């Protein structure tokens, strides 16, 4: 195993690099220090154990960085120089802080710079999961081998950057456990599993039709009736004992009928929307994995007063069960309806008592499920493809050579490159020993598979350092297989498929035309959704959406219409559209269309014709939308669920659209106190930033972009006044003096600087594509893209081609 020394080594080496910056500014800092600080923190006296006279500003190292940070912090807090000493002027402090902060930023940048050579990185969770899916042709619904893996840390905004992807003891243990689970799932040499058939109602006697027995505490006297949303699922008791007997495809059949969609009860009493057709959802869960395993896999509209039979096919992992729910039924509990709603309508019902459920059943809206059955497992191929690919024609009696061959086939796929017998000898020996010891042929095979799946060659995207002079001369170019791997993880977050692999095997992948064709092909593949999800999720911080959810009481619609998912979907569809249609990246800034469903259109106040599902919608002139800045996803994720956060929004614009990274805030800053009475606007409160000189330094750059977006509320709805009636002023002045008017002003500002946006997006894409931080060596590649992209109408697809063709992408 020739893995290069681990990251810490590299890191330690890098620490010895020193920032080199000799500017006149620094002599100014030095004079500031000598006039205000050195008397107490110098040669004669070292109060608080601090001594600044030895600081060499021409050669600041990490050891000094802590001291510099101290100085900045104390100046920011205004605690030094202490009272009674001569105080420097505000402008002096401001200058010193600015200069010290920039020195520190440079130092940070330098010390973590990788010079573009650290490429050893492990698969992150998403990549691991996708790779397992593609390696063994597994159906991943309800199966996540990475579920117990620790979260991947985010570096430079992305979770696929090698530097952040550390490996812990805990993770290693998880790799072992998951590999064992996967091996058990994949090695299925036996005969095709028997088909089982369970159900209730219909031909099964334990029927929902067996109407009336003892009313249970939820009033479910008739098991075929669904009264309320979600809490009251309908299950198949026979199935619930142990779940389905084997992984496989199952057919769920049910007969359902919507009854009394509109009833005597008012919608607000039932917390229910009678204008919508009833929807029945199917969800899966596993008792073994607990409630987190539950997920909704399908939803069907059920017509009024007419029974429909619906068959739904889905893949279930062993041990999973299914249940059906009324997805848009009355909210809350049946208890509430019996205690509070019924007495309003029936004088024989007693307010706040649990009236007999028989008094309600049959009067309100109900979703009737007359039968519910499940049959399976069915297989298109047996043995499963993921097994027969590596273990074709299994021998009748144990043959160890066959095992060796099979493991070799698997290793060649799993390691994403050709592998020879010698390389995997340790694995085959392990397998043979296991067989000798326990005598179970297929368990030995599983053991071998488990070992391969915990190999660093599988877990790491290995691009081994070469000592070969010839290769050195070739500018550290990636091998064919490494290139295929990098491309595949860039666009699919998974291993190369057969076509890409054969291209690499043939050695023709570095032909620009060939690789271009592959990029085009790969972007059209369904797997490219991984690129859309992961890249937009991280570039635009969409993953933050939902981490500060709005108050459910005050924002009912947000939850009732599932706006969070709708917003995320809008942005993903938008990105996808620009990618697939090869549109200009400037449409990210402004356009005259977006993607909406009816709920989101209502939220935005944009007319939406019939239907409910997502489609491309032209934005009317009167509405201020278009471009990412009008997307609810971004506006909601940059708010805290109650009010907008102009600072967060400003930073978002700077970092993700303009490529400017404001310095992090100094420690010990008192946050702005929220004004619960609503008598001052956020703008007035943020005036504080102007009054304190050290705050002003950064906030004059950040705040304007946030304040210009104030017309969008915390959920991205348009507003012209605050809820307490105060008016919104969304015109702002940038630090350099430009005046922007609202969101349109920001768009115009960025569109006037297309290169700056192009550079920003290119950098983001490149980090994501390479899985590492950028360094000054990548600068040339980026400059080239920024220069050439305008000639291609700023096409997003072309941008991706440029990145794939860049020197950085093709080098180690």
């Amino acid at each position, binding site marked *: 195993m020739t893995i290069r020394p681990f990251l810490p080594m590299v890191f330690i080496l890098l620490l010895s690099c020193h920032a080199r910056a000799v500017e006149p500014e620094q002599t100014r800092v030095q004079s500031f220090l000598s006039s205000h600080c050195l008397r107490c923190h110098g040669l004669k006296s070292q109060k608080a154990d601090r001594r600044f006279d030895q600081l060499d500003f021409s050669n600041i190292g990490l050891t000094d960085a802590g001291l510099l940070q101290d100085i900045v912090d104390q100046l920011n807090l205004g605690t030094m120089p202490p009272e009674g000493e001569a105080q420097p002027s505000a402008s002096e402090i401001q200058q010193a802080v600015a200069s010290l902060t920039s020195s520190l930023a440079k130092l940070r940048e330098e010390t973590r710079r990788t010079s573009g050579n650290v490429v050893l990185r492990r698969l992150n969770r998403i990549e691991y999961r996708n790779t397992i899916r593609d390696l063994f042709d597994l159906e991943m619904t309800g199966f996540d081998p990475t579920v117990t893996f620790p979260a991947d840390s985010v570096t430079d905004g992305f979770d696929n950057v090698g530097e952040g992807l550390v490996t812990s003891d805990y993770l290693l243990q998880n790799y072992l456990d998951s590999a064992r689970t996967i091996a058990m799932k994949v090695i299925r040499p036996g005969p095709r599993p028997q088909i089982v058939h369970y159900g209730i109602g219909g031909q099964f006697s334990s029927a929902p039709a067996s109407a009336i027995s003892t009313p249970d505490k939820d009033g479910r006297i008739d098991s075929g009736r669904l009264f309320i949303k979600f809490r009251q699922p309908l299950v198949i008791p026979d199935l619930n004992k142990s779940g389905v007997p084997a992984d496989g495809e199952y057919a769920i059949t049910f007969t359902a009928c919507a009854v009394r969609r509109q009833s005597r009860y008012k919608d607000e009493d039932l917390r229910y929307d009678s204008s919508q057709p009833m929807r029945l959802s199917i969800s899966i869960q596993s008792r073994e994995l607990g409630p987190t395993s539950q997920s909704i896999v399908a939803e069907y509209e059920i017509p009024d007063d007419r029974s429909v039979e619906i068959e739904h096919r889905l893949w279930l992992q062993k041990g999973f069960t299914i249940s059906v729910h009324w997805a848009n039924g009355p909210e809350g509990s049946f208890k509430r309806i019996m205690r509070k709603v019924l007495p309003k309508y029936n004088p024989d019902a007693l307010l706040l*008592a649990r009236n007999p459920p028989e008094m309600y059943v049959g009067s309100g809206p109900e979703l009737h499920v007359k039968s519910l059955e499940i049959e399976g497992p069915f297989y298109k191929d047996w043995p499963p493809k993921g097994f027969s690919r590596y273990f074709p024609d299994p021998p009748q009696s144990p043959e160890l050579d066959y095992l060796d061959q099979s493991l070799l086939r698997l290793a060649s796929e799993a390691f994403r490159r050709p592998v020879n017998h010698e390389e995997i000898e340790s694995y085959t020996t392990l397998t043979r020993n296991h067989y000798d010891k326990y005598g179970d042929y297929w368990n030995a095979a599983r053991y071998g598979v488990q070992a391969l799946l915990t190999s660093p060659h599988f877990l790491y995207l290995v691009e081994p350092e070469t000592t070969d002079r010839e290769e050195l001369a070739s500018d550290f170019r990636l091998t064919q297989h490494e290139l295929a791997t990098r491309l595949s993880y860039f666009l699919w977050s998974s291993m190369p498929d057969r076509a890409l692999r054969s291209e690499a095997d043939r050695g023709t992948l570095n032909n620009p035309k060939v690789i271009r064709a592959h990029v085009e092909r790969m972007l059209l593949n369904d797997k490219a959704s991984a690129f859309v999800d992961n890249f937009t999720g991280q570039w635009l911080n969409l993953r933050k959406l939902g981490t500060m959810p709005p108050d459910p009481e005050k924002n009912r619609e947000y939850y009732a219409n599932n706006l969070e998912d709708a917003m995320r979907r809008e942005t993903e569809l938008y990105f996808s559209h620009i990618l697939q249609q090869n549109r200009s990246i400037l449409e990210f800034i402004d356009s005259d269309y977006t993607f909406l469903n009816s709920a989101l259109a209502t939220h935005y106040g944009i007319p939406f014709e019939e239907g409910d599902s997502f489609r491309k919608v032209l934005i009317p002139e009167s509405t201020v939308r278009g471009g990412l800045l009008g997307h609810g996803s971004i506006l909601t994720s940059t708010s805290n669920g109650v009010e907008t956060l102009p600072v967060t929004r400003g930073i978002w614009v700077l970092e993700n659209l303009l490529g400017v990274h404001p310095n992090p805030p100094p420690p010990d800053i008192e946050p702005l106190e929220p004004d619960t009475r609503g008598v001052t606007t956020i703008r007035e409160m943020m005036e504080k930033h102007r009054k304190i000189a050290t705050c002003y330094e950064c906030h004059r750059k950040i705040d304007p972009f946030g304040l210009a977006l104030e017309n969008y509320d915390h959920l991205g709805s348009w507003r012209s006044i605050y809820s307490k009636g105060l008016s919104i002023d969304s015109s702002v002045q940038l630090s350099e003096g430009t005046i922007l008017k609202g969101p349109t002003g920001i768009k115009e500002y960025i569109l006037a600087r297309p290169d700056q946006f192009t550079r920003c997006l290119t950098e983001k894409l490149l980090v994501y594509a390479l899985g590492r931080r950028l360094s000054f060596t990548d600068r040339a590649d980026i400059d080239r893209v920024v220069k050439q992209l305008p000639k291609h109408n700023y096409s997003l697809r072309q941008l991706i081609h440029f990145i794939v063709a860049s020197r950085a992408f093709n080098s180690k």
Partner: protein
Amino acid sequence: MRLFLTTVFLLFISESLEAHSHPNVILVLSSDVPRDELGSYGTDTQTPNLARLQKQGTRYQIAWAMPTFHLSQRALLSGKYPTTGNSPTEASTSILVEPEKTRSPDITVATILRKTGYLTLAAGKWATDGLTPVQESLIANGFDQHCILESSLRNQKGPQTIVVNGRERSVENAGKAINAFLIDFLSTPLDKPFFLYYPMLSPRPVTLDDETHQQSTSPISRAGDVDQFLGDLLDSLEESGQTENTLLVFTSIHGLATKTTSPPAKDLTDRNPATNSKVLVPFIVQAPFLSEGGHVTRDLIDFTDLAPTILELTSNTKLDNHQLDGRTFVPSLKGVEDPFEKRNWIYARAGNVHMIRDWQHFLDSDGNFHDLIKDPFQRESVSPLDKQAPGRKQRLELILQRLESKLTIPNSK
């Protein structure tokens, strides 16, 4: 006032008389046979004719009569709960003597049907208040014809005397004779619809008064006899082609304790007339013009519901129930699900004790409260841990209070 309303009502329904075909109505009430000996309510007895009725009809799981024949008959024919008074005579005996003379007699379903052109016939047993002569009482209650065993003439050894339209006739076995009369009656075509009220007599002589529940014949053989009588009626109805147009209700004149439905006779509750098992009766309704049958339901029914139901079906007019205590169960027969069109409590009364129940809980005016699903024999109190029970009890209390104030005649009268 009441008379006026009834008159208006009568005028209204006679208007619509010509427009519809009017179903015949037969009420068959068994006596002396416990509920769970009968067909689908139990398992042991061979009762093929009840099974047949059930297949074509709707079987009610929770139906209440009154604890005595007398009260049952009053509730059934009038559609109203019998009022209670505090007269000393009434308190002293369980055979309730109604203070009839203190108020105008109720208008019965028979009276109304006769006026709308029905032939009305009472057969089997007839309960009187003991003050009015039998025939007078029958006419006052609206019956054109009768074929009854007069209660004063019952329980004799040897030949029995039945009264057919005023004429006494001596027969070997009154029960068989009356059934035979009815079979004749059903086989003879009539030019108008009929209403038959038929509390069955036991085909075998019963040695003691049915109020004491002490009989010489075994319940099993009596269940078989009831089934046989019913079967004969069903056959002749079918032969004369009237089944399709006949509403037939089979029930009992009151509940009856047995080994399987209630604790041994020594148990206190058995002597207490105010229990669920004293009023819980079989109730099967065959109405081919409304429903194909074969249904079993937990919809609640008590005896006051028969009058409004019959009136609705015979007049094709939905009755405004304000005048009656009962409520039509036509929606239930039609399979309507809406509970707002059905009852959510039922009531009975024994002496001065009022009882009320819903699908699960029982409450009487002495404050006894029971969960009939967990405790059908009413032997224990409801667990204090039962979270639903207090609310259910409160609701029943509220309704019972309303009823009590309506039904109790003040002492001064």
